């Protein structure tokens, strides 16, 4: 289509749109400046984060359409643009808050804000929303529990503007856990009006409607095609967004996504392959932010014979071609985690492991082990994450063959991957890429190194780590015990090596015609700060 005809159609479209009833007059042209078009490869399957079965891409609705009590501040990112700052908790719907001396009582004062139907946001709404988050079960309840929120009786609306949480035990994770997408605030009156006896939490209604006080509301949602946000001009918890309307378009083919962003038909392509990020970075703004508290690593399942031998694990660690993998799988995007640590502080995580590619050392360790002649093992990767897992697996396979370990690569369908790797933990040798939302090392260790915990796909158990994590998880970062505990955890984990860290992956986002992208730990597109370039 030529530019002339584009403009022509634009005018026609606008004219027709204005003539149509409000709700139908949705699409308009992308280049008009009022509309942001973002493409991504995944389907949004619900507008309600609390609902059973809501997938990860749907979290962005909670972020863009609802407010939480608090949020994090931002800082310049090494990947370009801004990223969240875990150390700075900032107000969102809460104007201010206090913490009791024993750390058990959190009291929040709400700002004057209104829901999108015009009714004011009250503490009762917050209480209802939090009750819902801990009552519906599933992932929301698990995440709430991380901050110490488990039961509705912990939440109380003292008056219209005052909301109080009572913790069972003090925790440094409590307030940060209120900044994750889960505890968003819903218009409880409207929700309850649409609740039924079978469905007291109005999940069916919220599944299809956004009734928050956030910066946007969902004006139209066609699963599998697109989702359209419309700006809430009365948003109280932050500066009014620059775009009136945001179209999130679902484009499954990565090649098509690239074509569309390069041609300028979309302004944001979210979560693009590293290779595209590398190649497009000279043509447009590309942010590649290393994902906080996230590590792509090799899992060595200690339930399986050869990997119970620590020399075998070390042999594998020395046999991995780190640099080649980082280039082939990540195209140098992200942060390397091999070799000696020189930049980060002693308690920073993720960190370099000290291991390098050294086949002689690898052979030496293998010779010392119970398997001097090597062994055969399947290496499992997920079909849904082939972009990084496949090259990684192939390169590891090739190098391990050189030291006598024969590896067959096993692609596991996406639906089975979680069951096999995380729930049943039955994959002997695999790749894993957990990232913790709350950015502290102990939080990572809690999920990934504690026996029986979900992301401990290696079935690793070390009694000292168990104790260390339990003792460290809730104490503040400035507690004197904190740093030694964390350092000891690193020492054990990197010596025993149930997981071999490879690199810290980056989230790549390309912007063509838009700017002011911010990286957030939840790895979803926060459209609120985006502005036209």
């Amino acid at each position: 289509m030529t530019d002339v005809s584009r403009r022509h159609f634009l005018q026609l479209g606008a004219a027709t749109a204005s003539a149509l009833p409000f709700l139908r007059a949705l699409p308009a042209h992308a280049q008009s400046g009022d509309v942001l078009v973002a493409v991504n490869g995944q389907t949004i399957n619900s507008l309600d984060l609390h609902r059973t079965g809501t997938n990860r891409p749907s979290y962005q609705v909670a972020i863009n359409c609802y407010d939480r009590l608090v949020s994090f501040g931002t800082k310049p990112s090494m990947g370009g643009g801004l990223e969240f700052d875990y150390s700075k908790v900032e107000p969102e719907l809460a104007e201010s808050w206090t913490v009791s001396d024993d750390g058990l009582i959190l009291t929040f004062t709400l700002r004057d804000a209104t829901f999108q139907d015009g009714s004011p946001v009250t503490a009762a709404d917050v209480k209802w929303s939090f009750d819902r988050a801990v009552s519906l079960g599933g992932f929301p309840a698990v995440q709430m529990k991380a901050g110490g929120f488990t039961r509705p009786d912990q939440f109380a609306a003292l008056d219209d503007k005052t909301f109080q949480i009572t913790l069972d035990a003090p925790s440094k994770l409590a307030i940060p856990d209120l900044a994750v997408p889960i505890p968003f605030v819903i218009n409880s009156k409207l929700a309850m009006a649409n609740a039924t006896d079978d469905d007291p939490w109005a999940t069916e209604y919220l599944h299809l409607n956004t009734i928050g006080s956030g910066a946007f509301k969902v004006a139209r949602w066609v699963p599998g095609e697109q989702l359209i946000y419309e700006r809430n001009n009365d948003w109280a918890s932050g500066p009014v967004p620059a775009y009136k309307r945001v179209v999130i378009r679902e484009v499954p083919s990565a090649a098509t996504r690239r074509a569309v962003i390069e041609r300028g038909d979309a302004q944001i392509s979210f979560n693009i392959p590293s290779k595209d990020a590398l190649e497009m970075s000279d043509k447009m703004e590309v942010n590649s932010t290393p994902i906080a508290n996230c590590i792509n690593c090799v899992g060595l399942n200690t339930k399986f014979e050869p990997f119970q031998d620590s020399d075998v694990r070390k042999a594998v660690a020395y046999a991995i071609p780190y640099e080649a993998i980082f280039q082939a799988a990540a195209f140098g995007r992200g942060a390397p985690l091999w070799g000696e640590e020189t930049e980060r502080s002693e308690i920073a995580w993720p960190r370099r492991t000290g291991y390098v590619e050294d086949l002689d050392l690898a052979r030496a360790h293998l010779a010392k082990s119970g398997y001097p002649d090597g062994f055969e093992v399947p290496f499992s990767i997920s079909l849904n994450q082939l972009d990084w897992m496949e090259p990684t697996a192939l390169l590891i396979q090739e190098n391990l063959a050189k030291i006598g370990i024969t590896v067959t690569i096993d692609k596991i369908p996406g639906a089975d991957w979680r069951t096999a790797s995380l729930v049943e933990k039955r994959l002997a040798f695999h790749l894993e890429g957990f990232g913790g939302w709350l950015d502290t090392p102990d939080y990572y260790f809690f999920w990934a190194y504690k026996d029986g915990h979900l992301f401990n796909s290696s079935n690793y158990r070390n009694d000292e780590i168990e104790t260390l994590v339990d003792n460290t998880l809730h104490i503040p970062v400035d507690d004197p015990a904190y740093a030694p505990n964390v350092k000891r955890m690193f020492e054990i984990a990197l010596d025993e090596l149930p997981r071999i860290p490879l690199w810290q992956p980056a989230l790549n986002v390309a912007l063509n015609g838009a700017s002011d992208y911010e990286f957030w730990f939840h790895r979803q597109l926060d459209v609120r700060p985006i502005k036209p370039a």
Partner: protein
Amino acid sequence: MRARLVGARLLQAIPVVIGVVVITFVLTRALPGDPAVYFAGDAADEASIQQVREQLGLDAPLPQQFIRYVGDLLRGDWGNSLSTGQPVLSDLARRLPASLELTLIALLLSCAIAIPLGVMAATRPGSWRDHLCRVLVTAGVSLPTFFTGILLIYVFYYLLDIAPSPLGRLDFLYIEPAPVTGFYLIDSALAGDWDTFGGAARQLVLPAITMAIFTLAPIARMTRAAMLQALSSDFIRTARAAGLPRGRIVYGYALRNALLPVVTTLGMVFSFALGANVLVEKVFAWPGIGSYAVDALVASDYAAVQGFVLAMALLFVTLNLIIDLLYAVIDPRIGFDAT
């Protein structure tokens, strides 16, 4: 008489549909992966997974699940898709027209090319035109559709910039026509909105070409074979001896007789293409049932997979019925044989 034919056909279809329902049920349960785990979310623990499992009704023994599924079906409830979060029936209702529109346009295009090609080849069998035609259509069916699609996007959208962005059924620029049939072309024409009509047509061009290239071969081959047979029939000689002009003989007499096997082939190609749409839809971000099915299958989304297959089976039955009726229109002999 024809009514009886239709009735007999429908009766025959019943065991087929029942079989499809059973096989799909078994096949979906055999899919790897536990949907409860998949949908419980990233950080779910045992308890919450169990909770999800109970909500999905996956804790019951299989026969019981099947009985409940069939019961729901009979009440017109096809279940909810977990990956889109919508009732399967409404998903299908929205996506089926998209796939049908694409497939139909592609087949129309394909017929418009393949039938004249086949006729041309049949009127000069063994000539260089015949061989060329055979080689061309064979080349078309040898190209993987996803490859053709990407190549077309690269050339016509990315390099030449003559095609619109491959983003589904309609550019942002246009307003979706009020849904009447679900076919954007028809709906926009009904609404008299010719801009939208043009927009929808533009979006259709590349995917339809991709599919048409792939479906040329069977249609052209069958046209050629049927035309050869028709042209060597005695009645063609009668027509020639009676001095009828060549065009009338080839198109009026031979082609109409050759249409019967061509229609059969068309039916098969149609149902095949509708299933093979999957790959084209993936490439062109076409919101059809093909991509829906793939996503559902990968996510072990039982209700969606079952609903998709059942819908396709019903469509297949309907299609066969339509073909039978078409036969009766084309060939007066049909319908009398049945008595």
